[in-house]
Structures are given as structure tokens and as C-alpha cells.
């Protein structure tokens, strides 16, 4: 009789036993040392399993993984778009475009993502220097007022998007689709990071991610625009 209950002990411990059987087993246990001992042992087995730690690999597996996913050069796979056309020309940007992108990049890499944030939060941060203390004065001057950086970034993005839109018909559909998918994903990442920063404006991780993601959008747009043949 005890064997019958012994086979039900795991279900009992896991809460999988129907009420009727559970009540019967609980009535049986006090008078059965074998089942009681078995139950105690199984509890120990479960506890041991839950306490098991994990051992890190003895060597760093990342270099091989990076190589296999094509990331050894540190470039994201979206950048591989450039390799689709070995003879793709480099697009020449106007000075204002370069200046806008440059200013925006300086601002972003300096951790001044707050400039692009909501007015309520901007009013909390009176100057670039307060959030980018490592920036030299010259850069602070370059990105201040905040509107210039915002506008410069937006202008650079808009210009590149216009180049891409005008050359859309000259790119193959697969390329267009990949570009649009990646841009959409980046835009959503930017929006999500901005929303997250609304709740946690001082979060360095999120600020860094937002800056990096915005920079990546510029990079992607530049490379995509460079695929458009000269008309």
C-alpha cells in the first residue's frame, strides 16, 4: 500500500495531486515512516536542484559567436548593406548637412540626449554642462542652444531620408525592405527609450542607449543613401 503512495509523492510536492488523493495521502503519512522519509528526501532533492549554481564557460565564447554572426569588425549587420554594392559611390554631403550631423553626433556622444527630451524635463536641466560634465567648453558652446542640436539632428535625418526617398526607385526591393525594416526597428527603439527616460531621466544606461540608437539611425541612413546611384 505504501508503494502506491510513494509513487504519488512528487505529484503531492508539486501540488499536482487531486484533492481527494492529497487528503488521503496526508492521512497516510503520519503512520508510514517509509513514505514520510521518502517525502523528506524528495524535498531535499528538489532543494538541492534549486540551489545548483551555474558555472561560466572556461573560455570566452563570444569571439567565435561574433565571427559566426559576422560581427567581428564590430559592425552591425545592417551595415552590411554597403557590401551589397562593391562599387557603390560615397555620397557627398553638403557642408550644412555634415555640420548638422556632426553637431548632433557631438551632442549625442556627449550624453546630451536630454536635449531631445520633453520640455518639462529640459527645464530641469539648465545647461549641457550639467549632464555632460566631461565635455570641453567648445562643444558645449557648439550644441547650445539645445534647439540647434535638435534641429541639426532632425535636419540631417530629413536630408538623408530625402536622398533615400528620391533614389528609392533605383534600389532593389530587397534592399529597400531591409532598410525600412531596420529603420522602423530603430525608430521604435528610440521612441521606447525616450518613453523609458520619461520615467527615469537620470538613467545612464538608457541615455547611452538612446544616444547610440540615434547615432545608428544616422549611420544607417548615410549608408543607405550612399547606395543611391548618382542621377
Amino acid at each position, binding site marked *: 500500500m505504501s508503494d502506491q503512495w510513494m509513487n504519488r509523492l*512528487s505529484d503531492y510536492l508539486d501540488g499536482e495531486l487531486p484533492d481527494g488523493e492529497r487528503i488521503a495521502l496526508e492521512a497516510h503519512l503520519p503512520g508510514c515512516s517509509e513514505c514520510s522519509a521518502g517525502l523528506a528526501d*524528495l524535498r531535499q532533492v528538489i532543494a538541492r536542484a*534549486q540551489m545548483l549554481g*551555474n*558555472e561560466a564557460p572556461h573560455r570566452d565564447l563570444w569571439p567565435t*559567436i561574433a565571427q559566426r554572426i559576422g560581427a567581428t569588425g564590430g559592425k552591425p549587420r545592417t551595415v552590411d548593406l554597403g557590401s551589397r554594392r562593391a562599387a557603390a559611390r560615397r555620397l557627398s554631403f553638403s557642408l550644412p548637412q555634415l555640420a548638422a550631423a556632426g553637431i548632433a553626433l557631438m551632442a549625442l556622444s556627449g550624453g546630451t540626449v536630454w536635449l531631445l527630451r520633453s520640455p518639462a524635463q529640459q527645464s530641469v536641466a539648465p545647461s549641457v554642462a550639467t549632464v555632460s560634465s566631461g565635455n570641453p567648453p567648445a562643444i558645449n558652446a557648439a550644441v547650445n542652444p539645445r534647439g540647434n542640436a535638435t534641429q541639426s539632428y532632425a535636419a540631417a535625418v530629413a536630408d538623408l531620408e530625402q536622398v533615400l526617398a528620391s533614389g528609392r526607385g533605383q534600389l532593389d526591393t530587397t534592399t529597400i525592405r531591409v532598410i525600412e525594416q531596420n529603420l522602423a526597428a530603430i525608430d521604435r*527603439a528610440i521612441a521606447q*527609450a525616450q518613453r523609458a527616460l520619461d520615467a527615469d531621466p537620470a538613467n545612464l544606461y538608457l541615455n547611452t542607449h538612446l544616444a547610440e540608437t540615434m547615432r545608428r539611425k544616422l549611420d544607417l541612413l548615410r549608408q543607405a543613401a550612399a547606395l543611391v546611384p548618382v542621377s
Partner: protein
Amino acid sequence: MNELGLEAAILEPKQTGRTDPDAVDATLAASGDASAFERLYRSHVTRVYGLVRRMLSDDDADEVAQDIFVRAWQKLGTFRGEAAFGTWLHRVAVNVILARRETLGTRRKRYLEGDAVLEMIPARRPGPEMAMDFETAMARLPDGAREVFVLHDVEGYRHEEIAEMLGLATGTSKSQLHRARMALRQHLGR
């Protein structure tokens, strides 16, 4: 939902009060950011590696762990953010592990019935007086019992999830778990 299915990956901060950094990295990685993917790798490799070691063997662990992360990179577009990234990655890992096991043809007496599982561990013990590490005892369980035990008691999956992953009936998952526990019971305190 975007084309990559990632819109839900970021938990709404206004609802949760915090943002899942893994979800941010998963979003970036899905758009091609290898640095973000490396951060995910660093965060999860130890747990994934432990799963591989317990489900397969130390010998295969490095290669299979690498396969898992390469597969995860390839499948990032299917990550919907409905569960934590770690949970999604674990499912990917289990699938890779099971596929590897099939490929290697290493299954031995999978999903034994009766008391066969109980008989195998004592037969494999180096000697009655020799202490056997709990991990070693786990490693000597037959594949089917070990898989269920690792997934349920170590990794915390439910029987329904295990049954789906392994292609078993839920009842089989339960019986394998009990047999594994009863076998391991013999090695407590040794």
C-alpha cells in the same frame, strides 16, 4: 507591432516603473547591433552554459552554447517581448540542445518505464563507499529523466511546458520527474 515584432519588447515604463534592459538590447540587436547582442550574451551565457552542461555534457558545452547564441541572433526577429528575453532565450537553447541530441544520436534509453531509471544509477556508481556529487548523479540519469528533471526542478519549467518542448504527454513528464527524483534521493548527503 513592427516588422520585427519587437514593439512589445520594452515594458511600458509608466506601468512597470522600470524598463527591462534586456528588452532594449534585444530591440537593438534585432536591428543589427552586435554590441547589444554581446551584452545579452554576457548577461545570459552562464545560465545557458549550465543548461547545456546538464542537458548534454561538458564535452559539447562550448560548441552548443555558441550554437545557441548564433541561433538566437538569427531568430531575434521572432522575439515578441511577450516573455522576458531570458525566457525566450532558454526556449531557443532547449530547442538547440534537443536538436543536437538528435543529431548526435546520443539518446540512450530515453523515457524509460518502470524502475529502470532507478536501477541505472547504482549500476553506474563507482563504488558504494565513494561519494557521488549531486551533479554527477544528475549527469548519470538516463536522458529522458535528466531532461525533465533539469527543466522542472533546476530551470523551473512546468510539466505542460516540458511536455510541449520534449513532445511528451504531461503524464510522462511527471513520471520521469518522479523517477529522477527517486534515483537522486539515493545520493543525498553522499
